[in-house]
């Protein structure tokens, strides 16, 4: 049986394939189980990353405010998140009587799945990609939109005005900020000439001045527009009006408790990592770097972007709803499109290197 998606996570896949072959699997089962194992490996890796990010966020938050953050569990509280997860697993799953049962149940699951799905096409390193789709970045843009649906579902299913308001705000915000984000991504695609993530990274090979962020003048502008829009997409401060604590208690996830809440929470942090991963792939040269192995470069760059998002949270105050919309439609979108036109013109005139 030929794999219907060409697998590119070669070293890991080959190792897994041979291992299963030794055990005695054969034929189509071998391929299917290998895929499943590979998915599990990526899933496990991302779960660990999400747990780490929760801990890191708390540490950064603490230290910006000159606190310590979690300190009790292990060295500087390194397994605090694990303990929180255990607590959330053991907690009662409180359900509102007036909820919309099916919608309430599926919302966290869709959020969780939508957070993991983009990692099919994200290159973790040289050759370390699950599937090199030729429409990679388009695929990511398409599947990350499921997050909005899940937030809207959570808001609607909860039968709670705060949750509903949060979900509605989230939908409005994400739909608005999708436009400048896509425009800034298009700027990159104009120059890479391909939607495939691997091709985009390969175009930026070489030293750091080949990265798209250093392609003057449109590179930095596109990067800044992307980071701003992506912060809004990930519902993070200063664009966190879907869960503005002072206005909406907790936003769309008010009525969720226990493991369902944890799924929303983890999905949020994985989204953050996705933002970092896309920024790395599109603007920061992906896995390219010197001396260190490629996957390490990828993680270092991604975590730096995530760290930037964390600093945003403790630097900038939250925007009002109308300011948020005004910022997206009156400023970001014109800038992004002007930048796109500039990039296209430069590409046409071959004023680039």
């Amino acid at each position, binding site marked *: 049986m030929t794999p219907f998606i060409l697998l590119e996570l070669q070293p890991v896949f080959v190792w897994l394939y041979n291992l299963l072959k030794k055990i005695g699997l054969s034929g189509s089962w071998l391929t299917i189980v290998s895929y499943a194992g590979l998915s599990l490996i990526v899933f496990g890796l991302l779960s660990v990353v999400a747990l780490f990010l929760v801990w890191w966020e708390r540490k950064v938050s603490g230290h*910006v*405010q*000159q*606190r*310590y953050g979690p*300190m009790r569990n292990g060295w500087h509280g390194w397994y605090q998140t694990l303990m929180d997860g255990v607590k959330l697993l053991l907690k009662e799953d409180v359900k509102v009587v007036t909820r919309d049962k099916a919608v309430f149940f599926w919302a966290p699951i869709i959020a969780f799945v939508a957070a993991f799905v983009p990692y099919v096409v994200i290159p973790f390193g040289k050759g370390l990609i699950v599937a090199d789709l030729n429409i990679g970045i388009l695929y990511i843009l398409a599947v990350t939109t499921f997050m909005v649906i899940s937030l809207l579902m959570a808001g609607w299913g909860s039968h709670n005005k705060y949750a509903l308001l949060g979900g509605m705000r989230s939908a409005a915000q994400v739909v608005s900020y999708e436009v400048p984000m896509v425009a800034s991504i298009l700027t990159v695609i104009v120059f890479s000439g391909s939607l495939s993530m691997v091709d985009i990274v390969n175009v930026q090979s070489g030293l750091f001045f080949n990265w798209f962020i250093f392609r003057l003048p449109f590179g930095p502008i596109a990067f800044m527009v992307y980071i701003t829009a992506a912060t809004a997409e990930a519902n993070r401060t200063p664009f966190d009006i879907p869960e503005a604590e002072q206005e909406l208690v907790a936003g769309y996830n008010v009525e969720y408790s226990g493991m369902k809440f944890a799924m929303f929470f983890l999905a949020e942090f994985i989204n953050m990592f996705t933002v970092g991963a896309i920024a790395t792939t599109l603007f920061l040269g992906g896995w390219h770097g010197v001396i260190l192995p490629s996957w390490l470069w990828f993680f270092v760059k991604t975590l730096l972007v995530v760290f930037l998002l964390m*600093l945003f949270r403790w*630097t*900038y105050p939250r925007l009002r709803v109308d300011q948020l919309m005004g910022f997206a439609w009156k400023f970001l979108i014109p800038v992004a499109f002007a930048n796109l036109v500039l990039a296209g013109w430069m590409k046409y005139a071959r004023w680039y290197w």
Partner: protein
Amino acid sequence: MGVLKDLKELMRGLGIAGKHLGRHAVTIQYPEERWTVPERSRGVVVLLSDKETGELNCTACMLCMRACPTAAIFIDAPRDENKRKHLKEFRVEHSICCYCGLCEEACNFSAIKLATKYEFSTFKKEDTLWDMNKLQEVGRDVPYVDTRKKKPVKKPVEPKPTPPSVEATKDAKTQPDAPAIDKEKPDTKNDVDSPAAPPEAEEKRDNDKNEGKG
């Protein structure tokens, strides 16, 4: 270019956040490390003992009991056949006490003080009522400045109102730890056998205090 200016300000904000990130946390990890509170902070109420004899300074004058706004202090001091009061029982109910320090202000004999100790929570309500022994034991190692007058001597002697000499003042100021027991306020017409010193003990209490944290 308003946009560039705004961008610069945004970057400045990030810089400030980053600067604070690099600073050391001010949190105290409580059970492992403890904060030495300033010396004048008001913690647990204790009874002070004389440094030489080890007896309580309290004369059972009841001033603190009257000064107490929440009636947390109970003093039992029956008179003996010479009509002298003897301190029999002194209780402080720490769950009622509002830690205002009025008893300390009212006391003329350096007998009661709000010490800097702050760890006296218990599991039982009864344990918040401290009797005389406990108050004395906890107050044993509490540093204090003795502002007592010389204890009245039985035999009356002629008062010698000598003016305070400059040397004596200097001495008292340079030695903050000198026992103030020999000092005497000049305006009090008591039986004294020592030259009177100016009433700077009160100032000293404020001055030689603490470089505590915070």
